[in-house]
Every structure is written in C-alpha cells, then in structure tokens.
C-alpha cells in the first residue's frame, strides 16, 4: 500500500461515524461493516445511490441511520442514478449555478445488482469514466428475496433456487462469475476486493482510491449469517476464513497492474465451508457427489493462485504483500467493540465470540 496514506495502522481509523446503529439489517451483517468503514474514509459529503437489495432497508421512512445523502433508484440502474447526480452537479458547477463542494457519489448494490441485472449500467458508467465509487457487497446470492442463486453464487453452494435434492447433490452447479476481471477489462481508475475481516486493508484501499478521478470499484465479501447460514457472531470469522483459505483473494488493480494485498495462509477450505449451512451437504457422508465437489473447489483455489505464481499451501503466518501485519486480528475485535451490539431484528452478536475471532 502506498506509504503516504493517512491511515497507516488500525489506530488511525477515523473516529467519525456516518452509519449509525438502528438499521433493520440482520445482526452480524458483513455488508454493513464494510459500508461503515468505507464511509469513515469517504467522509460526510458522500451521497449514496442504491439499488434493490438488503441495504435498501437502510432507509425506511421515516428513519435513517445514515448521515449521507441517499437515493434509492431501482434494481438495475443505480450507476445511472449516480451518473445523473454527477452530471447535474457538473453542469450546475460549470455554469456557475453551484459551488464545487467535492461531493462523493457512492453506488451501493448487492451482487445481484452488480453481477447480473445491473452489469450493463455499470459497464456503461465505467465506459463513460464516471467519477464515482461503487461498492458491490457480495453475499453470493439474491439475499433480500430469500437467497436465490445469482451470478455470484459459487459452485457447490446451495441456495433457495439451487436446492439440494435427489437429482442435484451439489447445489449451484456453475462457477462464480468473475466480476473482478469483467470490471478490470473496463480499466477503471481503481478496482479492489475487500473484506469486513480486513478493515485496514479496506480503509487503505478506499483512501488510495479517493485520490483518483474516475470509477473506483470495490467488490466486498459480505458475510451473511442469514443467507449463508451461520451464527451472527461468526460473521467476521467466516469473512476471515474466506480470505485465509484463498477463496476470496484480496487484491487491487491500479495503473494496469493487479497486486494481491494479502497472501493467504491457505487454511484448508473445509474450515470455511463447514461453518456455513449452504455448504452443509458437502459434508454429508451420504452425498455421493460431496467429495468430488470439495475437490473441485480446492482445484479452483489452487489454479487461481497458481496463475498468480503462488502455491496454495498452508502457511503459519499471515503475510501481507509489503511484509507488515494486516492488523485484522486486532481490528476485528476493535471494530466490534466500538460497533456495540447491533440493533434491529434477531439476536445481538456476542462480544465473546468476537474475541474468539480476534484470537484467530
């Protein structure tokens, strides 16, 4: 990460909060953690343009737990909404009808919005070199409608439209669409993957992106207790394992170059899969396809990392690309302490298990 960033360690995390407790999101929702961290870096003059999905319920009339401005558009066209607002402001500024106050525009959609129905609108916004941020919080399914298979659903995961049955022992039979590469082909100003388990990595990427004009694109691992099926207290742990197993590479694409910002420890992928109900069938002894499916998942991880010149072999220590510690072990507990007990429906996540995450 560039040496001149203001957030050098987790201790420099901005204290200001722009996303407050009180939303109707599930406890332990990984997406909210990422939004909260992102807004800390982007600051008060952020205008969010949202597409249909879980996060749409961040604004339920007459309540708002956001300090940012907000426009809910529709499922497919949040990037076009961002375009309209940016264009309006640019037009008014260039005509002297408004002052340039450095308003930042953040598109917020799920994976359904980004990988599938809104891909066209996103492609075009990048093509027009729109100056905006995009956070795709990827919970790997259509969550808001009850966790149906999307382009982001990984091979072997069961969803409500790829359920396990006598004729389908695997669940989702296709592989996860490679949105990073699709977006990368547009050569945006900034592109990165993030995870709520790696707040320092996340904030540094946002800060680095903020120095660039043009599309600043983020795909975040949105650990989703409700849809993926695990206890809310395990949310950060699941996200952490997604990174540690090599399932969710943390990387960035800047100036034509992809850099992996975290080199995983390559924890066996079973540890990640086993925690989640959506992969439960892969550990069912009576499932004839289970072994082969897990082997296929492993193969995919191995070949991904091999292509990066890295052998996917278990390591003792987590190493970051520049050799320093990623800070995530400290930060996951830090964040959850300051986050407090999530309000809203369901049971609050317990601080005890978050400490457990910190020990990981």
């Amino acid at each position, binding site marked *: 990460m560039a040496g001149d960033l203001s957030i050098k360690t987790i201790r420099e995390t901005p204290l200001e909060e722009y996303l407050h407790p009180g939303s109707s999101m599930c406890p332990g929702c990984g997406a909210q953690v990422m939004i909260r961290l992102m807004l800390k870096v982007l600051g*008060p*003059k952020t*205008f969010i*343009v949202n597409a249909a999905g879980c996060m*749409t*319920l961040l*604004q*339920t*009339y007459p309540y*708002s737990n*956001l*300090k*940012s*401005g*907000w*426009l*809910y*558009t*529709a499922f*497919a*066209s949040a*990037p*076009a*909404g*961002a*375009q*309209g*607002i940016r*264009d*309006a*402001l*640019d*037009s*008014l500024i*260039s*005509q002297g*009808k*408004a*002052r340039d*106050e450095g*308003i930042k525009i953040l598109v917020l959609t799920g994976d359904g919005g980004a990988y599938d129905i809104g891909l*066209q*609108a996103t*492609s*075009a916004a990048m*093509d*027009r070199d729109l100056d905006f941020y995009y956070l795709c919080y990827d919970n790997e399914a259509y969550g808001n409608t009850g966790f149906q298979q999307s382009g982001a659903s990984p091979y072997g995961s069961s969803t409500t439209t790829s359920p396990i049955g006598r004729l389908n022992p695997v669940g989702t039979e296709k592989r996860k669409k490679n949105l990073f590469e699709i977006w990368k082909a547009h050569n945006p100003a900034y592109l990165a993957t993030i995870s709520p388990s790696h707040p320092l990595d996340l904030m540094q990427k946002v800060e680095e992106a903020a120095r660039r004009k043009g599309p600043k694109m983020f795909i975040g691992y949105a650990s989703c207790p409700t849809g993926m099926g695990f206890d809310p207290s395990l949310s950060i742990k699941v996200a952490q394992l997604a990174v540690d197993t090599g399932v969710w590479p943390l990387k960035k694409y800047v100036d034509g170059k992809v850099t992996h910002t975290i080199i995983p420890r390559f924890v066996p992928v079973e540890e990640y899969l086993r925690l989640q109900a959506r992969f439960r069938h892969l550990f069912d002894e009576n499932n004839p396809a289970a072994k082969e499916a897990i082997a296929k998942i492993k193969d995919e991880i191995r070949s991904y990392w091999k292509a990066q010149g890295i052998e996917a072999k278990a390591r003792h220590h987590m190493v970051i690309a520049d050799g320093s510690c990623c800070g995530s072990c400290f930060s996951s507990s830090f964040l959850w302490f300051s986050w407090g007990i999530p309000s809203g429906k369901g049971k609050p996540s317990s601080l005890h298990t978050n400490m457990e995450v910190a020990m990981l």
Partner: protein
Amino acid sequence: MLDLITGNEAIAWGARLAQVDYVPIYPITPQTEIVEKLSEWAANGLIRARITKMESEHSMITAAGAAALAGARTFTATSSQGLLYAFEMLYNVSGWRAPFVLANVSRGLAAPLTLLPDHNDALAARDSGFLQFYAETCQEALDSVLIAYRVSESRKVMLPSMVNIDGFYLSFTREKVMIPDELGDFLPPYPIPAISAGNMPSMGPTVLDPSVYSYFKYQMHLAQISALDELKKAISDYEKVFGIKRSLIDEYMAEDADYVIVMTSSFATMARKAIKSIREKGIKVGLIRPWVLRPFPRDDLLSALAGKRGVAVFDQDVSPGFGGALYAEIASSLYGAPDAPHIASFIGGLGGKEPTIEEFEFMIRELISPDLTRRGPVMLWTDKDQRILDEQRSIALRGGVVGR
C-alpha cells in the same frame, strides 16, 4: 422568429428555450433527430446543457430523474420500445416527484415491429404519474414543452411531464413555427436546490407501512388535480407573453355540432379536412381534441360535449380484450352526466394507418343511426386495407420452402 421546422426540431427548441441544464440521451427512430439537434447545439455552444450518452432508456430515465432531484433542469426524449424499456423508471421518477420533461415520439409497439405511429406506447404510461400532452402541430409541440416545464416545476405539482408527438407524421413534417426569442418570466428558476454539503436529502426510501404508501401515492393524484389549475394559469400567461393561445380541449367547428369526433394528436388534422367535407353535406359535425390527457380535463371535456347528440371516439390504440383506451376515459366521464350523448368507439390509425375521409364519414353515419346492440369497438377498415393485406398474405402464404 418564424421558421419552418420539423416536429422534432420544435421539441428540441422547447428544451433549448427552457435553458435545460442536462440531457441524457439514447437513440431510437423516430425520436433521434431531437437528441441529434441538441447535441449539435451543445457542440456549437448554442446551449449550455450537459449531454450524456446513456446505454439504455432505463438508465436514461434513471439519470434524468436523479439529475432533476439533484438540482438540474432536465430534458430527455424517446419513442415506443424505448419508453417501454424504461417503464419501471417512469413510475419511480414520478414517485420521486422529479419534475423533468420527456418527449415521446409515438411509434407502434412491436410485435409486429413497425416505425410508424400509434398511441399504445404513450397510453401504456398513462398511469405512471407523468403529465401527458398530445400535440397536433409543430407549434403545439414547442408550446407543450415550455408549458410542461412551467407546470411540472410548480410547487403544487412537482411531477414529470411527457410530451407526445406522432412519429413521422409530426416528427418529420415541417411546419411554420413561431419560436420565441426569449422566455421573459414565463418560466421561474428551477425549484430544486443543488445537492450540497448542507443539502443531503434521503430520497426514494422504502415505506413499510401501507398507510404511508397510500398517502404518497394519493398525493400524486392530488398533485395531478392541482396541475389542472396550474395548466390554466400557464396557458393564460403563455398567451400574454407569446400571443399564442392553447387550451386543454381544442375544439374545431364543435360549438354548433350535433356530432363530434374525439381524438388526439396529429391525425386530428385529417379529421378537420373530413369535417369540412361532411359539413358540406349539411351534417353538423365537429372535432373535440384533448391536448392534455393527464391530468384528465374532465370538466372541460364535459362542457365541450354538453348538448351533443353523438360522440365518436377515435382511438389510435387498442387494449386487446377491451378496445379503445381513450374511449374508456371519455365514456366513464360521460356516465351519469345529464343528457349524455350516445358514444361509439372506433379503432384506427394503428401503426400509422392513415384514416381516410370515408372512415370519418363512416363514423358519423354510425352516430346518426347507431347500432345499439353493438358491444365493443369498430375497427376502421377499408377496401384498400383489405387489398393490401390480401396481396401480402398471398405472398406470405404461397408456401413452399425457398430453394427446395
């Protein structure tokens, strides 16, 4: 300035005179000339609007609505398939209460695919919350855009407007148009402040309570009703500033008429010709042409229809399984009115099928000696229509596979 311009150019002039700040665009025949004209003007510094090339009409309407909320006077245009592609967003932007103007250059809907006009596209959007103007002439097209901005942006309305002109028949027809040199104070400054650090609203949020949903939806109806008054004020100011008179209901030889044809848009010009010729035979006929369908000018329409013996509604659309959409509105307005005239429903002009004088004569004959047993509409169909169809079907049905 008086100039000979097409309907499309007249629409573009409306946007230019309104000094719009923003125009998101996407091509479609027969609308494209509008956005080409605006692009040309922008490239030459004749307008200051920012023009953005979108990738679809769905995105175009999203961007238009968002920009209108962000403080920019916004214009955009489409036709037919494009309007339907954007359909989801039509309801959204009106729910956002985003007061911009959308020109729709009417074109029949596929399938079968056609380029020529009818009103199924615009009427499909009838319930979207947009105000709807249906222009007959190029002059009226320009006037509609300016009046639409004025009414849409009025605090009591705050809804988008759709200005419809017929593809080809009006979009590509040159007529003499009085283009105002400037607007004077006809159009007040744009009412929505720019988004800024001190102005960060939350817009379009979810409502979880049906009572609240009902409240907001009904507010849109009340805003449309307020738009009737605002329209009347705007019409009167428009005449004062530009010397051009518009009315919600345009009447032609209707005052002393026993029988009237009710229809909208450019094909009314053909009705005028037919009415003149029918009058020569001593039958008192006239034309009643609603210029605005949303808000629906019920009272004005009823007073225009008062005392008539027969009303023939010419629908340039079809609602399969029912009949004419315009007929439904006129008939429901007349229901229960004292001495309501006999009303008959005709479907014509689909996919640009030009109505002939004989078709109008037929409609009037049907009014004079009505077939009271008839339920549903009459499709206007001439021998010539049958001949063309027979010819083409015989080719299509000739059978056999080419090359076998």
